């Protein structure tokens, strides 16, 4: 069948490279977004959440 032809001649290097490319862009995007300016206080607040229980209880 057609699909078999395609699959068996598939250049095996493409898929990992494509996957890596998608991953790297998401990774860089995520990292940049996380360190965006003005976010420090927000993250500080959130990271205190597990500890806030003692304070409010």
């Amino acid at each position, binding site marked *: 069948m057609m699909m078999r032809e395609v*699959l068996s001649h598939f250049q095996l290097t493409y*898929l*990992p490279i494509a996957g890596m490319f998608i991953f790297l862009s998401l990774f860089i995007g995520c990292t940049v977004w996380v*360190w965006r300016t*003005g976010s420090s206080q927000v993250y500080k607040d959130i990271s205190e*959440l597990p*500890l806030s229980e003692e304070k409010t209880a």
Partner: protein
Amino acid sequence: MAEKQVNSQLEQFSYDDGIVRKFFFATVLWGAVAFLVGVIIALQMANWKFNFGLQWITFGRLRPLHTNAAIFAFAGNAVFAGIYYSSQRLLKARMFSDLLSCIHFWGWQLIIVSAALTLPFGITVGKEYAELEWPIDIGITVIWVVFAVNFFGTIFRRRERHIYVAIWFYIATIVTVAILHIVNSINLPVSIWKSYPIYAGVQDALVQWWYGHNAVAFFLTTPFLGLMYYFMPKAAGKPVYSYRLSIVHFWALVFLYIWAGPHHLLYTSLPDWAQTLGSVFSVVLIAPSWGGMINGLLTLRGAWHRVREEPVLKFFVAGVTFYGMSTFEGPMMSIKSVNLLAHYTDWIIAHVHGGALGWNGFMTFGMLYWLVPKLWKTKLYSTALANAHFWLGLFGIVLYMLSMWAAGITQGLMLRGLDPTGHLLYPDFVETVTKIAPLFWIRLIGGLMFFTGFLLMIYNLIKSISGAEAAEAVVHSEPRLSPAPAIGVKPGESPHRIIEGLPAIFTVLTVVAVLVASAMSLLPALLSEDLVEANPAFKPYSALELQGRDLYVREGCYLCHSQMIRPTHAETLRYGPASLSQESMYDHPFQWGSKRTGPDLARVGGKYPDLWHFRHMMDPREVVANSIMPTYPWLYSQKTDFGVLQKKLSVMKSIGVPYTAEEIEKAEPNAREQAKRIAEGLSASGVNVDIADKEIVALISYLQKLGRDYRNMTAAPGGAK
């Protein structure tokens, strides 16, 4: 926060800790079962006689019980205890429904009990970590949905706007485990306790290891990371080292993990490019894993001196360190050349126990010790005992891992060893087994130490709790998030607020990441009908052979034997030419195996006469001196179920095995006829009991079929291979 001031209407509520206490007890109880069964099968590996000739506790049947108990009963209940405790507090809301919590708890225990009652009877699908038969699978799905509704309901009713990273990890766990379980458990029933997976061969292998690998990821890793992000800061009294890192950690992990599944199938007949894909992503996986480990460990900054005194912190630090070790070792073993040595050997066993005992076990113990004084009005009975538990456990794991590394590497090297003329250095498989047999005893000692430590914990917990009352539920008051959190995002807010504030969007993004990666890594499986070209040389099993195959599955032979010859010189010398994907195209489920305690069986058909197998299965040591394979005497007295064969063949036909109407119609008489021929042959060689209707004959017919078609195909034009 702003919206709270706007809406100052206070609500009173309390947390449901009763459900946490229930899961707490279940964790301890099933932990004891899982570790005890582990010790028993370690003993059976050291000396096969320790199954006492009882079929229900023979290695092949107990091993699935051990893994299921460890993963789904012990780790599962621990995860639920931790999730129920932390989610309520992080979301500032009681669980959505006490009734659902209760159904979840009892339903899950019922599933575990039914696993414990079916697996020893050989009721199994025959796929690792997905052994449970279809009625139990349906139960799991229902209970999981109950859990999900309860959990998402709680998120919906929360009084805290922000969703802390631990909750993200729980969400990823819940949605992904549901997807994995459903896709991998699509089986067609033959009867109430027997079903066949709809996938076969390569396709089944790929789906199974996509499941298997990601069960490790989303049942044993993401929920425990969630617990780490909650309980480490609690125990250390400090917020997590870097919240930003935790976000990157989360997304990188969710995105990467799914792609790595094919690293369980390197050098098999899976297409090469799929293997490479799995390899590459596995290696990259080190990065987020270590990001998480570092984040966990650095949470203790400035509190390191307390690790010396506090057992809880000791367990957490060691647990996270084991996480780091396992997530270094895993990617390393995914490098193809390393995998060639490690795969099928005890090295893998060392690896999984580093993860299971070190990471899951120690994180759970730390959490249990931490929870006792919170859930009951009490103090921990003895810190000294908890410390003793820690050191016993730690040295137990170290002994376990060292012995299994040594065993795996030794056997791996012996199996591939060639002399200068290119012949196998150790042509007798059993030589490689006797060499490592002493290490099985050392493993047993390691396991016993770990188990003893665990018993100390049970004693310690009982002493702490007995006489103590359950902690009173504290009434909290918090403003309501109005009107519902999802609508509470204001126009001016930054996008992260929207994503974090909207669990629905967040969940969808996670599901997309998981599905895209799954689609990519399952591509060959999804298209396998196009990929595996049917070859008329390879024929489906006869009715009797199929019955024999089901016995092979029932006895868990696949837990000691592979049926997949890798394309290396040493392996083809030992077992014959590398396996082709066509050879297993009618195998529902595939039986490639993952561990070679015994030799590969892909081409064992025709290697020995029927009589050899007849004697070998009765007592392997009769034909192979020093064999450690258990005996199977019950196969010689139990009768083959011929009546079910017609049904079995027709189910097989409906999932794609090309049986003719006549073959199905005549399944029973054909099987009886074939059994009679084998029995006659045996009696001609001196076996003078009437055994045609006994299970052993069906099993022999199956073993003799393995590799037969391949041999016939290659023998046809130019003589023997």
